[in-house]
């Protein structure tokens, strides 16, 4: 059972939890959204500067567990320079990775494969997806706070 715990908390996750990338508000943001997980109190803000369809810059801040923080941090590093459609597709692939047992495509998922262990911890899936839902809302300019209780 300790193996599953080691699978969940991989070194990369510890690293991003301790030193999150692209952390803090974004001066030139033209899209932003708030995310909230009422079950554990995680709060996250995602800030995006768009250049047409392209994500020119993306930041996040807030408070959360290691899984939600690392997920947000890695997400920002992967979405830089991607367009809206690519962002949505990556989110879908990520969600499949952590919820459905299947052979994942390491080439498209990149660093996200470190979250494969989340699958064994159903109560933590919402932690991993909170930042992604919030990013989606920011791009769509919904203006509404995303809560995990509506989206999963």
């Amino acid at each position, binding site marked *: *059972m300790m193996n599953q*715990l080691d699978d969940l*908390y991989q070194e990369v996750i510890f690293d991003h939890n301790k030193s999150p990338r692209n952390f803090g508000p974004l001066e030139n943001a033209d899209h932003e959204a708030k995310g909230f997980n009422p079950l*554990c109190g*995680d709060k996250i803000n995602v800030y995006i500067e768009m250049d047409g369809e392209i994500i020119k810059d993306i930041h996040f801040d807030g*408070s*959360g567990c*290691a*899984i939600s923080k690392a997920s947000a941090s890695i997400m920002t590093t992967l979405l830089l320079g991607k367009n809206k459609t690519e962002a949505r597709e990556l989110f879908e692939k990520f969600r499949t990775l952590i919820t459905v047992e299947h052979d994942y495509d390491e080439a498209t998922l990149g660093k996200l494969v470190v979250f494969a262990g989340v699958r064994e911890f159903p109560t*933590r899936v919402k932690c991993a997806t909170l930042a992604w839902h919030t990013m989606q809302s920011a791009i769509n300019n919904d203006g509404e706070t995303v809560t995990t209780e509506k989206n999963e």
Partner: protein
Amino acid sequence: MEKSTVIESDRRESKTGNMLDVESIRKDFPALNQDVYGKPLVYLDNAATAQKPQVVINAITEFYSTINSNVHRGIHYLSQQATEAYESARVTSQKFINASESSEIIFVKGTTEAINLVASTFGIENIGKGDEILVSNMEHHSNIVPWQLLCEKTGAKLKVIPINDSGELEMDELKSLLTDKTKLVSIIHVSNSLGTINPMKEIVTLAHEKNIPVLVDGAQAVQHITVDVQDMDCDFYTFSGHKVYGPTGVGVLYAKKMHLEKMPPYQGGGEMISTVSFEKTEYNTIPHKFEAGTPNIAGVIGLAKALNYVNKLGLSAISAYESQLLTYASAEVEKIPELRIIGRADRKASVLSFVLENIHPHDVGTVLDREGIAVRSGHHCTQPVMDRYQIPATSRASFAFYNTEEEIDRLVKSIKRVVKLFG
């Protein structure tokens, strides 16, 4: 039928003195005897819900296997037996909190429904525009939201008694918040997230000096300390069955007879009426006026079994033992430098909330879970408490009389493991 009095010879005290024979007590709770992720379960989420003794589980099975029938309806044998068991449970509940009459005991789904009942009957009748309802900063959401709903309907205002850094009510602030506008005080007896035992008798005295009625949310109290509603002199007292070793879906609202007789019905339906015609309906007498529809009969019978079980162990012995567990656990976790206890009131029930520096409670919960240890991670339905201490959540270990110091040792060892893992 059940006897609610304590039978001295049934008290299970160990030979060493006042304490309970925990080893023998644990055998009464089948759910405690299981492995989780290959490790013996350490159940420390008792404030969320307690495990059930075999006598309670048996009582429910027995009811459905023997006298299952509706209450207060049939003249047949089974219905009489069921009615007798149901009404006897009311007497057991009455004696458990020392109410003066059994008609002052209303069976409800739980504390949440009890508070909603008072808000939508007593509240609607007695609280209007510009009036104030006084709660505290440490209330459970179920003692906040029903009053907010009432305020929205009536134009009344919700006022909040602040708490100090230790998690105790600011009594001076409380005194100044009791004004001519205050129409009800509603306060949690024992805080579910901080463990604080509030001085309810003192609060009731202060409120009554100004003729303000008091509701006491006892969901976290009756399983830990002796409650005497006559001595406390509160107007309303509520508790949930499942937190006092009984089934889920059943609870008690105690209200003084003088209030119940004036309060309008809560829900309409069967049982709560005496005569119905399309012109006019006469309501039943109390307590039946507030129990519309077929009640949770098996649950009520199971609750009485649980209360009798607690009576047999004795709440003074339970309080003493749980207090010893809390003292031990607090001293042990304090040795972990990264750990901070949230809630350090002088008078505390066996609830231990804590945060670890730079480690989110959700991660703590996951690691402990895989060690077979069940704690609660989150805001515990007390978001204003989390805001007060500027934390998103806490980890909470809550102890019952069946927990042991060995289990606390396992908890402490696992917390140290978390610190090492995330440090």
